């Protein structure tokens, strides 16, 4: 059974509306490791060997984060910069992550319509996440379409996130059980679309 690692990054967890709820929705799933990066490294001093061991020990890497400035929060960048070392994650001898599955799980305040070619943000989420896509490919990982929750600014936090929570839980459960059609999940724009309303 694939071992799933959720790398969670939110610098203001206590203010989070949706990411906190997504995390809560999957916290009790068995066979899933949740690693809270801002909790582990409040001073940005990342323990690289420990993180590399953690990556090696899992088969699916889910990077869960809010979508800040068309990317992930700063600590994620620091993490990728430091942990994905040459010779470990890429390069002629860097094959530690080969064959693993990588997926972004992220949230945007704006609606889906804003993330379209010709929309306010001019690019789709899939396009904006291209650096992560290419990072995964360079590390010989399979990159899936991102899991995206749009329009979080306008949703009632107490009642409106139920469908997203259920979808996220379904995604992780299917990744863990190996029941997700990875080829299809890689081909679409959002992985949400192959999950349906669970």
């Amino acid at each position: 059974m694939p071992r799933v690692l959720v790398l969670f990054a939110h610098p203001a967890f206590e203010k989070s509306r949706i990411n906190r709820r997504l995390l809560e929705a999957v916290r009790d799933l068995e066979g899933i490791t949740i690693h809270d990066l801002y909790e582990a490294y409040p001073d940005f001093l990342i323990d690289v060997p420990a993180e590399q061991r953690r990556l090696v020990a899992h088969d699916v890497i889910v990077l869960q984060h809010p979508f800040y400035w068309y990317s992930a929060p700063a600590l994620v960048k620091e993490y990728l910069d430091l942990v994905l070392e040459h010779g470990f994650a890429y390069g002629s001898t860097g094959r530690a992550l080969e064959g693993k599955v990588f997926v972004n799980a992220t949230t945007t305040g704006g609606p889906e319509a804003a993330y379209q070619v010709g929309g306010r943000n001019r690019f789709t989420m899939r396009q904006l996440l291209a650096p992560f896509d290419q990072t995964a490919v360079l590390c010989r990982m399979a990159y899936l379409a991102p899991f995206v929750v749009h329009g979080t600014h306008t949703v009632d936090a107490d009642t409106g996130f139920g469908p997203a929570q259920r979808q996220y839980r379904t995604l992780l459960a299917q990744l863990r059980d190996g029941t997700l059609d990875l080829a299809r999940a890689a081909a679409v724009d959002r992985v949400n679309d192959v999950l349906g309303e669970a």
Partner: protein
Amino acid sequence: MHDNVLLQAFVYLAAAVAAVPIARRLGMGAVLGYLLAGIVIGPFGLRLVAESREDVLHAAEFGVVMMLFLIGLELRPSMLWRMRVAVLGLGGAQIVGTALLAALVGIAAGSAWKPALAVGFIIAMSSTAIVLQSLAEAGRLRTDAGQRIFSILLAQDISVIPILAVLPLLATLHVGAGSEAHGVATLPGWQQAFVVLAAVAAIVGGGRFLLRPVFRAIARTKLREVFTATALLLVVGIALLMQAVGLSPALGTFLAGVVLADSEYRHELEGDIEPFKGLLLGLFFISVGAGIDFRLVAHAPAAILGLVVGIMALKALVLYGVARLFRATTADAMFVAAALCQVGEFAFVLLALARGSGVLGDAEAGRLVAAVALSMLATPLLLLAQSRLVEPRFAVPAVERGADAIPDEDTPVIVAGFGRVGSTIGRLLRASGVGTTVLDLDGDQIELLRRMGLEAYYGDATRLELLTAAGAANARVLVLAVDDFIVTERLIAVARRHFPHLQLIVRVPDRPEAYTLLRDGISEVFRETTGTACDMGFATLRALGHRAFQARRAVQAFRAHDEQGVRVLAGKWGDDTSYMSEARARIAETEQLLAALSFVDHHFDLAWDNTTLREEAQGRSPSGHTAGPEGTD
């Protein structure tokens, strides 16, 4: 043999030591234990008490005086102001209602109105000592009903003054003029008023402007026993002053307590007086028990018992009505009635005056004294019955019970020691909007802090009473920032034993102390100079021309390694501080330090160093997958 002071002390103490644990075990509460102990050693029991029991009673009444001082200390003037409706309304209605109803009953029974009214006012008093002690034991002081009871008791304690003044006017019998009266009572009316006002002004003014500098000076000596002596001196002095002018000593000390309630020495005073109060109150209860005249009861058992039951029923009726009038629930009103329907210790004082000034005859007064004592004896039993039999019927879900008022001064954090380290922590917490109570043993420092507007109190935090007074029961974190490690260890022991819920954040001088505490299971241990040393190391690296971010990471990494090293070594730091284990620890320590210092060359932020990438790019022709990400350089 009865005249031997030590022997008497032995008898009283033995009675207390034997009776109270037994009473507690039987679920009766300490007050009832004391009262029963008094009966046992009294003239109708084992007859171990000296004839001069009056002296003991006088000494014991001092316990009541101290209790009122402590009550005063708890009452900040602002809080008193907030309670004014309850005190004046609830308490006033209770006193007037009881007095009038009792007078009516008395007149109906054929008494003249003056003595009937006097008796009414006398029995309106309840026993502050018994009730507060019983409530505190049951942990019910802070409940809604507890607050009402407290308000009524406060009103009664205050009303003693006017009653003392009015009582002689109700005299109908002729006695030798001024045979019992002394002090102000012998003066003409306007002079009386002047002396009373002057005494009150002296206490308020003295407390405000004289006592605080005195306490500061005493605190500066750092001799705890001198501070305790000063606290006792204050209470005794005020009691004497009040006695001299013929006023209630309890009221005087209460006033002094209120005046000092805002001072920085409040917690320390509380801690100092508390043990004396407990002991003397116990003595007081024993004397009450020993003082019950069972001969009188045996002579006319029906009359005395009728009197007791009648008085208590009448008081309970008025209390219940008044409480309901002031919107208490049925259960609360019943509890108030059960708790306060006895007659209190002030009644002894008032009865003496009433007999002396010819309001009541000797026989009536004697019967009333016996009835008062019996009603006091009945109170703990009544409360016991109330909690076992009546309350279950009114049982409220626990949720509603939980909403009791938490006093303003309860803060989530207590900082012990406010010197070089503690003061910074305190300011940081305060800036973060975290309520912080500060305890320190340096009077000058405290004075300085208070001038800057910080809530700081003088006192030795290792004392349980002081920690309790500072709100340790409701706090969440205890920050230990005292200089002396021995004090730190003592404080940890006290806090762990009595407040295991408190999270401890501890400052220690250096490694050995850190090892000790880490081995003891304290995880939040901070060596006091490490932070500063690291900051200085950072500044040094900067001075040598290192870039800021690199220097910062070097310091962070060193610190992380260092903290880790201390934790690893703590486990090795042998219980047997033998040479070998010490040596092994030192070798391991050096290794750890060396590893920490060579971190840049080993495995540290290797990804930011693109040496291997450049080698690979130059050595082999880049093809397909192995090309590096753009912009790695």
